[in-house]
């Protein structure tokens, strides 16, 4: 928004002014301006369990199952025995055990759990991170608003590439290509940019196309990152060995540590991916191993955010695209199961130590009113100060709301 106004002011002459106006018109526009709820969280960290974690072997343990249930620091919560460190932080958790969707295909379900909508070929729905980036901006000013670690996440859809995820393939490696190439300095880079800006202005005038403007915004963001004073957030070596060890010697552990540092630097939305939960074979061995990675990382993240007084303002969410069948297949595996699955929330205004909803004895059926993905999104959006019904007009004029008629789960939200 700021940038657009700046462009209108600085564009020289009537043609430039017209170009900026035209570009603004075909870009997505807010359909109705409504004030969101008072924000409880200023940032959100999503720990994405890619592949669909078995809910009954993690957050929704069942008697008689191969893994035992473990009592936790929260009287109302029992979780899997292989999450002992998280159990010690369970008083911070709200576990939703009654999520239910109809998408049992990875791509479609991943899309649903990232955007709040089932894929629809005619609308490019933005992911939640993109909404946050668009609405709340980059809290770190010159860092991107939305960072995805170890995974490609989901894009910004019609909100435009400038709000898409800044992907960090490997948390141990700082982002590439941030330094000038050899024999280029500040002055020379500015000369290059001025030539580029002239070319872009010309092409924008010639075509009147919003895509040119979207690309200019993207380049502008990239350049601001180059000059950011907060890039040291990417340097995990600044952390003491003991802290790094506490998160676990895994990429996911390092990703969670990086997420904490990025949130401290002002980034609004960070997603960290832990892949491998698609356990059609050897479900128990593999799920146990994955919990061995998840447990120290999530527990340390929560403890550290609390110690640094960031947990109050940081919403942490841990989930995957669906659950897995209560029945065990011939390969000691479990198959896709969107009918019932769990999500874990903490911090950012979440009331800790509670369980919302329940499944039957086997874990195959939600026996309380089912929670739609849209409701989970509405809960997160509300905590971040966004109206779940916030509506933008996608190019072509179609109004699209932040959530698909989602209603926040009020019992999860701490009274302020």
């Amino acid at each position, binding site marked *: 928004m700021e940038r657009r106004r700046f462009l209108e002011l600085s564009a020289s002459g009537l043609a430039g002014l017209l170009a900026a106006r035209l570009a603004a018109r*075909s870009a997505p526009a807010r359909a109705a301006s409504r004030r969101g709820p008072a924000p409880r969280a200023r940032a959100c960290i999503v720990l994405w369990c890619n592949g669909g974690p078995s809910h009954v072997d993690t957050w929704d343990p069942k008697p008689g199952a191969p893994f035992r249930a473990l009592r936790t620091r929260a009287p109302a919560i029992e979780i899997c025995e292989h999450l002992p460190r998280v159990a010690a932080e369970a008083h911070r958790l709200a576990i939703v055990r009654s999520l239910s969707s*109809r998408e*049992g*295909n990875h791509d*479609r379900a991943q899309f649903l759990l990232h955007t709040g909508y089932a894929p629809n*070929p*005619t609308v*490019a729905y933005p992911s939640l991170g993109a909404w946050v980036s668009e609405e709340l901006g980059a809290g770190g000013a010159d860092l991107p608003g939305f960072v995805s670690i170890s995974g*490609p*996440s*989901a894009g910004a859809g019609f909100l*435009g*590439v400038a709000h*898409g*995820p*800044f*992907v960090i393939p490997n948390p141990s490696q700082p*982002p*590439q*290509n941030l*330094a000038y*190439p*050899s*024999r*280029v*300095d500040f*002055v*020379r880079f500015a*000369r*290059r940019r001025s*030539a*580029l800006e*002239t*070319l*872009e202005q*010309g*092409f924008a005038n*010639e*075509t*009147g*196309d919003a*895509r*040119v403007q979207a*690309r*200019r915004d*993207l*380049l502008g*963001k*990239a*350049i601001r*990152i*180059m000059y950011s004073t907060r890039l040291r957030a990417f340097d995990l070596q600044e952390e003491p060995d003991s802290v790094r060890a506490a998160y676990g010697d895994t990429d996911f552990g390092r990703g969670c540590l990086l997420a904490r540092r990025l949130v401290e630097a002002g980034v609004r939305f960070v997603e960290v991916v832990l892949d491998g939960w698609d356990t*059609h074979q050897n479900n128990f061995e593999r799920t146990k191993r994955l919990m061995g990675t998840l447990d120290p990382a999530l527990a340390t993240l929560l403890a550290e955010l609390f110690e640094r007084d960031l947990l109050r303002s940081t919403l942490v969410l841990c989930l995957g695209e669906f659950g897995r069948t209560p029945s065990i*297949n*011939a390969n000691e*595996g479990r*198959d*896709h199961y*969107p009918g019932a699955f769990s999500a874990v929330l903490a911090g950012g205004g979440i009331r800790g130590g509670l369980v919302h909803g329940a499944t039957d004895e086997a874990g195959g059926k939600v026996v309380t009113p089912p929670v739609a993905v849209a409701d989970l999104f509405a809960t997160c959006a509300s905590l971040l100060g966004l109206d779940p019904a916030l509506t933008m007009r996608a190019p*072509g004029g179609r109004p699209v709301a932040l959530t698909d008629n989602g209603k926040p789960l009020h019992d999860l939200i701490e009274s302020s």
Partner: protein
Amino acid sequence: MPSSLLIRLLLVALAPAPVHARLAPADIDRRVRTEWRRQHLVPAPPVDDARFLRRLWLDLAGVIPPPEAVTAFLADRAPGKRARAVEQLLESPRYADHFTQLWENLLLGRQAPGGVVDRLAFREWLHAQFADNRPWDKLVYALVSATGVNSDGGLRNANPRQAVRAAVLSASSPEPAASAPDANKNGAVNWLLKYTQNPPDLAGAVARTFLGVNIQCAQCHDHPMEKWKQDDFRRFTAAFVRTAPMPIDEGQAMGIRRVALRDLPAPVALGPKKSELGEIVAAHPTALDGTDLLAAPGGPRRALAAWITASENPWFARATVNRMWAHLTGRGFVEPIDDFRRSNPAVMPELLDRLAVDFIASGYDLKQLIRTICATEAYQRSSARTRDLERATRHFARHPLRPLAPNALLDSIAQATGLEAALHKQAPANLERVKAQLLSQLTFLFDVDEEPRTSSFEGTIPQALLFMNGILVNAGASALPSSTLERVLALPGGDLEKVAALCVCTLSRPPSAAESARWVVYVQAPHEVVKRPPAPAATADPLDRAAARLRLPEPTAKQQAYEDLFWALLNSSEFFFNH
């Protein structure tokens, strides 16, 4: 006599034109113009010669035209030069190379699945099809019904890095086979082998890719609005569960494992997800219109291939025409191109139907379809600003902007900068490795999905940083021996000529008078040389090391000014988009 002749002539004139009469580009233009009038759209002006040529090269060859081609085309004063340019490209090896690459990416995805999927064998098969202009129905029939041996085996294509490397190699120069070819070898099976453990994805891909129908959402649930039910999807998928790969190489073979893909008399479920396939295995193979696929001899997969490619199939020709129209004009009649359904109507549906009829009548001749579309006004609109831009673009009254695909972008940067020639000179042994690294870096930065469903991908911040600060553009924009900039700086004449040459090499057009004047001032403006810092950081970059090894003379201020202009041209949206 004259009167009877007159009557006969009249009768001929009044008789309805037979439906299979060839559809001329002018007929299409007439229909499109009628629609523009009806919609009160003011079309963008026709595209000029230089921009036409660039678009055509990107669409048919996957790369921007070399500067010589631009100059020759602009100098050509004979009529019909646009049609001739289409013909030349269709007859050049670049056409088959490019379409092979497009379809290889579409069908196999960008990842090398490895194991039993021999990417090179599949590519060779595809390349032979496009080089022969094999009728599209024959090609698709052969693909969907394929049986036979996947590979000659051996070490080639053994690891993913080599596979990526192979992807950058020109498809027309395959590596020699490692062992004697198998008489039953059929590279086409490699696409099916990608899916042997996942028939639902294969069924979804077949319907989407060749029929433009998205039935896979019915895999999990009945679609609320559309007619596809879960049962339809299962019965369609059931056509693919009577096929299995039989191992040829025993034990731990090196590289690609050879298998023979065969049809079986009874259905089987394979792979880790077989427990989910029960209902599919039990379903009766049936085409989407209810045609029984089990009754036909030869097995349900062949029956399905025949049903898909039959001239009566209501989707096949339309979906193909729509895909090709979208590939060329930037938008399909139906968008997204693989989502034909009643609640997603086509624009100008009669024209789509007419083109489909013509495509069938031509014997599913892809080149003829391309020739026709490229000759239309719709293809030859400029991307200039219009009133009501979105709607004009949707009705082909203005050419949309499309980001170049990763391969096209890499090849175009190599073309514009002369980087390939420069690399060849510096490090011929490393050339393919360097290119493969660049491509994988580029592809990673582009890809959100393995098989992107949308073309709306203007890039990411890491990608923007790569182009602004990365070695690819910066080495490319420098005056290495044999590079474009070295050649441009050596041109006779002054800055005016050099600026114009740089513009032709990147934007494939001469600069306007105003642009020439501006860029001449730009390169002549006084400034200081920026030197390399005294102790250059140790870098693993082969290009940088090569430049250091050559001990190139320190660049002059003027040379750096040209590098800056070159850098800006390569980073510009006019370069980045197909427009």
